[in-house]
Every structure is written in structure tokens, then in C-alpha cells.
């Protein structure tokens, strides 16, 4: 039989191993940083639609991580989502006329906030608010948009549609009655010029 | 002479079978009292009743004037410190060596220093003649030796009453002789009151001061060993002399032998 002292040291080692395991789980696996929030400042941005953005989603400038989303609340009067971004104090020279957009990492990845810097000589500071924001792209809306345009163009050149486009047209034609109404609601709310802009940004980002 | 244990009109049932059906026993202080009877008559149960581990359905058991079964848990534990019990299998803690086994009740109930505990344990081990075996584990002991260790442990707290559950059964003649001598000398030297439960007739009669014989849930005879030996009651004689047939039948109750055989043929 082992002496009490030996047993106690083994139990101590066991406990130590478990604590180290927990620390690894916390920092290496789940990337927990909220206990030790790095020094930084909070800025806010309002979006019409934040998509799948969550608290602790990354905030990036040119693809480089500069901070994280610290809270998301709904403004009760404007019904916009007010997102608070916690930005590391190392990045304290971001122009205050920059715009914030919600982008998607890859085709099906998580959402993150991308800040596009502009040229102002005054910088963002604690409590600043982004003037220009771009909402998240919702795949369903984009597809709806696409179908809308396709059906418009196919109306203009009905004869030129190839056999491969036929099934697609058929489905849109069959669901025309249903899709007509949502399209009508989507278009005025988001507005075509607004939707065009993030699209270009995506391509830009992908080029990076 | 005062009575340390008084058992009056105790009834006890287990699984619907009456084990005791009105038993009266008094155990005088400072004497060796033997309780004998065939196997299965609940002799061990009787010891557990005295120790407060079981509760009688009816009747009263007092130990040094206190009713065992109306005591609070705390007082019962206090009373148990004055009792030692030697279980049939010894009941030694298999994860502790001989020394630690005997030191166990001292460590649990006293605040003595390690030196004091060591001395006390060695005294107890010397009494049972196993001072040299202090570092052995219980699995390394022979049956007789582990009973002697258990005996040393039972007297570690210097109890007033010590109960032996079949201390002699299954022992070779030498260890039986050793145990008989130990029981007698410990009783006389320490001023203990001893209760022996046994079915080894001759050895038990040789050390007991007073004998009770129980069978079928009742006391069928009691007296000094000599008086018991002279008793002519048939049931008592069958037990004491070891006759195969008598009031306790040789055959387990069954239907007539002929009929049983015939039934087998028919089907």
C-alpha cells in the first residue's frame, strides 16, 4: 500500500494535469479571450441585417484580425441591429469615415465584420459610430435577385434560351405567382444599388 | 452479582419466519456465558440484537441498564464503544495490516499520540501472542491467527462486554486450545463479561460459567455446565450428545417416501 504522502502527491499531479487540460480547452480550443479582454476601444455600427453574425465574431481590416464583436442588440425604434465592436488598442488609427460590412468567410463560412478604411485624418475612438454600413448578404435574397433578373432577361429574349435553361425557367414559371410578391418586397427594402455594392466588395476580398 | 445484559421476551422474525419466539436470557457481569444451539437457530442474530444492529419485533434488551433499541444513534454508538464483537470470519480490514487493524478503533475514537497507540497495540498483540505478526496483511494470516487479531482489535478499546460469534468453529485442535485459553484468561485478567455463541459442545462447556441452549426460537435449557450435562430433556440430550435422530428429525420435512417414488413412476 502506498503511503498517504505518495497518494496525495499523485492526486496533486492529477489535479494539475486536469487544470492544464482545462486551460488548453479554454485558450487553445475555444479561443477564450473574454476573461482577459485586450485593451481596446468600442465602436458601434447599425445594420439592417446581420445574418449569422454572433458575439465574438472576428472584426477584420484587410483580412487582418483587429478585434471582435462584443455585443449585438436591436434598436427598438429603428429596428436595426446595433453591433458593438471591440477593437484592439494597437489599431487606433482607423479613419472615422471608414465603412463596416458583414461578410462571409468562404461560401458557407461564418460571418465576420470587415472594416474598409477611407481617407479621413480623424480616427475612430471609443463610442464612435460607423456612418456607412453594409448588411450581410443573405443567400436566399441573392438567389431571389438572380431569378428576378434571369426571368426579366429571358422575357426579353425568349427564343434564345437553350435547352439547359429550360428546367430553370420552368420552375420559376411554375412558382411565378408565389415568387412575384417576395420579389416586390425585397426590391424596395434593400434597393438594387445597395445590393450591388457588397457584391463588388466580395470579389475584391476574394482577390486578396 | 449484577447482570450486564438482560434479554426479556424477545420476538424476532426474518422473512416471515420466527427466529426468536419469546427468549429470556440474563448475562451476569464478569462471567463467561455460552449460548448454544444447532445451526440456524439465530445465535448470530442474537448477538446482533444485543449490539443494536437489528431491532426485535417485540421485547426488550438492556445492556448495563440501557435499553439498546430506544437509544439515539449517538448514545448507541457510545454504548458500542463498551462492547467488542468477534465476528465469525474475523471481519479484519483487508486493506490494512495487522497493526493498523488493531490501531483502527484507537485512531477513530481517541486522540492519543502515535507513540501511545503503538504501545497500546503492542500490548494487545502481546496478549494474543502475535506481536511478531504486526506487519502481515490479513490475507497472509491463518484462520486461527486472524481470529486472534480480531480478538485483539475487539479488546483494543477495553470494552466491558465481548461477544464471540462461533470463535471455535473450523479451527484445528491447537488453535482451538489457544482460543479457549485466551477467552478464559482475557475474561479473568481484564474483568470482562464474555458471551460465546457456539455449537462446539465440549470446548464451550469447558470454559463457560453458565450455559443457555436455544432451539426453535426458545430457550430449551440453561444452567451451569454440570447441571446442563445432567439434564435429561430429550431435545437437550440430542444436541449435547450429537445423536443423528431424535426430537430434531434426521429428515427434512417431506411427503411419504413411497408416495414420492410412485409419483416419479406415474409421470
Amino acid at each position, binding site marked *: 500500500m502506498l503511503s498517504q504522502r505518495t497518494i496525495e502527491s499523485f492526486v496533486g499531479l492529477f489535479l494539475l494535469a*486536469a487544470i492544464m*487540460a482545462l486551460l488548453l480547452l479554454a485558450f487553445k480550443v475555444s*479561443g477564450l479571450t473574454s476573461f482577459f479582454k485586450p485593451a481596446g476601444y468600442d465602436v458601434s455600427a447599425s445594420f439592417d441585417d446581420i445574418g449569422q453574425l454572433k458575439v465574438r465574431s*472576428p472584426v477584420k481590416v484587410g483580412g487582418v484580425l483587429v478585434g471582435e464583436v462584443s455585443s449585438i442588440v436591436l434598436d427598438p425604434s429603428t429596428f436595426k441591429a446595433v453591433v458593438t465592436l471591440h477593437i484592439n488598442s494597437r489599431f487606433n488609427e482607423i479613419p472615422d469615415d471608414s465603412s463596416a460590412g458583414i461578410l462571409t468567410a468562404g461560401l458557407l463560412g461564418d460571418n465576420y465584420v470587415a472594416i474598409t478604411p477611407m481617407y479621413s485624418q480623424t480616427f475612430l475612438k471609443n463610442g464612435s459610430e460607423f456612418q456607412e454600413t453594409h448588411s450581410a448578404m443573405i443567400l436566399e435574397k441573392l438567389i431571389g435577385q438572380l431569378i428576378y433578373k434571369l426571368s426579366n432577361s429571358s422575357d426579353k429574349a425568349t427564343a434564345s434560351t437553350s435547352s439547359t435553361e429550360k428546367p430553370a425557367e420552368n420552375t420559376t414559371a411554375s412558382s411565378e405567382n408565389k415568387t412575384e410578391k417576395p420579389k416586390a418586397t425585397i426590391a424596395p427594402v434593400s434597393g438594387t444599388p445597395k445590393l450591388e455594392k457588397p457584391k463588388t466588395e466580395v470579389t475584391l476580398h476574394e482577390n486578396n | 452479582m449484577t447482570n450486564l445484559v438482560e434479554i426479556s421476551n424477545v420476538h424476532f422474525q426474518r422473512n416471515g419466519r420466527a427466529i426468536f419466539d419469546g427468549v429470556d436470557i440474563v448475562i451476569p457481569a464478569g462471567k463467561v456465558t455460552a449460548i448454544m444451539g444447532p445451526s440456524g437457530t439465530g445465535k448470530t442474530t442474537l448477538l446482533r440484537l444485543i449490539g443494536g444492529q437489528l431491532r426485535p419485533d417485540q421485547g426488550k434488551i438492556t445492556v448495563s441498564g440501557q435499553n439498546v433499541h430506544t437509544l439515539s444513534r449517538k448514545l448507541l454508538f457510545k454504548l458500542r464503544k463498551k462492547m467488542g*464483537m468477534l465476528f465469525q470470519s474475523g*471481519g479484519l480490514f483487508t486493506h490494512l495490516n495487522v497493526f493498523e487493524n488493531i490501531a483502527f478503533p484507537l485512531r*477513530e*475514537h481517541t486522540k492519543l499520540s502515535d507513540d501511545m497507540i503503538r504501545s497500546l497495540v503492542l500490548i494487545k498483540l502481546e496478549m494474543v501472542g502475535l506481536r511478531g505478526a504486526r506487519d502481515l496483511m490479513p490475507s497472509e494470516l491463518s484462520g486461527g491467527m486472524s481470529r486472534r487479531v480480531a480478538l485483539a482489535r475487539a479488546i483494543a*478499546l477495553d470494552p466491558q462486554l465481548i461477544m464471540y460469534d462461533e470463535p471455535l468453529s473450523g479451527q484445528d485442535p491447537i488453535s482451538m486450545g489457544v482460543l479457549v485459553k485466551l477467552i478464559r484468561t482475557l475474561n479473568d485478567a481484564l474483568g470482562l463479561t464474555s458471551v460465546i455463541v457456539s455449537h462446539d459442545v465440549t470446548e464451550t462447556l469447558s470454559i463457560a460459567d453458565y450455559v443457555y441452549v436455544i432451539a426453535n426460537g426458545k430457550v430449551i435449557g440453561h444452567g451451569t455446565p454440570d447441571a446442563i450435562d445432567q439434564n435429561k430433556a430429550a431435545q437437550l440430550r440430542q444436541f449435547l450428545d450429537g445423536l443423528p435422530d431424535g426430537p430434531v428429525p434426521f429428515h427434512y420435512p417431506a411427503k411419504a417416501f413411497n408416495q414420492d417414488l410412485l409419483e416419479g413412476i406415474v409421470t
Partner: protein
Amino acid sequence: MMTHITALGRWGIDTLEQLGKAGLLLFRVIFRVPNVKKGLPLTLQQVYAEGVLSLLIIVVSGLFIGMVVALQGYHTLAKFGAAQQLGPLVALSVTRELGPVVTALLFAGRAGSAVTAEIGLMKATEQLSSMEMMAVDPLQRVISPRLWGGFFSMPLLTMIFNTVAIYGAYLVGVKWLGLDAGAFWSNMQTSVDFHADVINGILKSIVFGLVVIWIAVFQGYEATPTSAGIAGATTRSVVYSSLAILGLDFVLTAMMIGGW
């Protein structure tokens, strides 16, 4: 017909009685003024017997389970071109489900059965009775340290299992299948939430640990003191614990996901 109904009724009453006894046992062990000076060394001994001695099986199983999940997950994810998501897949399945459940099952087999057999044997060899006759309460001296020892060991074992399993997945994914180490960890970090995944997994393991050790202790304490009785009690201890773990896992997961 009547006899069947009677048998069913008797079975029901017996089951209820067992449950009641088990509840009483737990109650009497937990709601008792602890004796720190005597109880702590005993509890530490049991943490050693139940926790430290289970480490080997936990570490080895954790490593292999992590490796297997990584291997399986890689080939499935590769079909969708999402092999980069291997880190999140492994980390989420391990911290949420596999870690607590597999650790608890192994714990029931390794430590729970040992505790049941030990207590049952102590009962059969009259060690518990003689302890009681020495005015020492077996609940306090034997049952309570084992219960607390198991209670403390389980979450610690789960944390170690989780870490080892994720490291095993790292070995397979990064070192063998050649995924990028940075992507492996950073994808994991963005998907795994410390509270929702890691802490909830550990909460599960605490519940499992208590249930497993409770069943083990109870089966040992109520075992029939014969060799067949102890064998039966040990089997029951493992079977009941495993069933309880899997059943409770569903309930706890539903609670955590449902946000109760």
C-alpha cells in the same frame, strides 16, 4: 393472469423501495457534517483509486477516439471540400458529447465496478458490520469518501480526455493528413464556445460522475453478501450506470440546447 399482475405489482414496489433506499443513502452521505480532518485523507485516497488509476485507460481511449473521429471526419468532410472544418468537427463532438459520455462509460467500467465489488466484499466479510460494532459509521468511513472521490474525479478525467482526444485529432489531421495547423486551430477557436461547449460538457460530466458513483456505492452497499450476490451487484452497477449515462445525456443535451 392474477399472478402476473401480482408479480408486476411486487416488482414495482421493489423497484420503488430500491430507489427510496438509494435516495436515503445519498441523502445521508451528502447532508452530513463532514469531518475534514479524517475525511479529507480518505477522500484523497479514493480520488487516487478512482481517478488517478483510471487515467491510463482514459488517456489511451481519448487518444484513439480523437484519432478515429479525425480520420472519419476528414474523409466525410473532404467529399464536400470542407476538410478545413475538421478542427471544429472534432472539438465540438468531443467537448459536447464524446468526452463526457465516453469518460463516464469508462469510469463506470473501471472505477464504478471496482467500488461496488469492494464495498460488497467488505460487507460479505463482515468488515462493515465489525466497523459498525466498533461504533464507526460505515457510511462516513467507507461510503462517503468513495462517493466524493468519484464526484471529484469525473470532471477532471473528462477535461483530460477532451484535451487528449483533440490532440489525437491534431496528430491525425495535421501531422498525418497534412491539414494546415493554423487553420485547424483557428477554425476550432472560432466555432467552439467556452461556455456553451466546454463548460456544458464538463457540467454533464459532473452529473454523470455523481450518478455513476452513486449507483456503484448503492449496489455495493445493498449487495447480497455472497459471491453470486457481489457478481450480480457489480454487473448491475455497470449496466445501470451505462443506461443512466445515456439516458441522462439525452435529457441534459435537450436541456442545454433548449436553453432551460
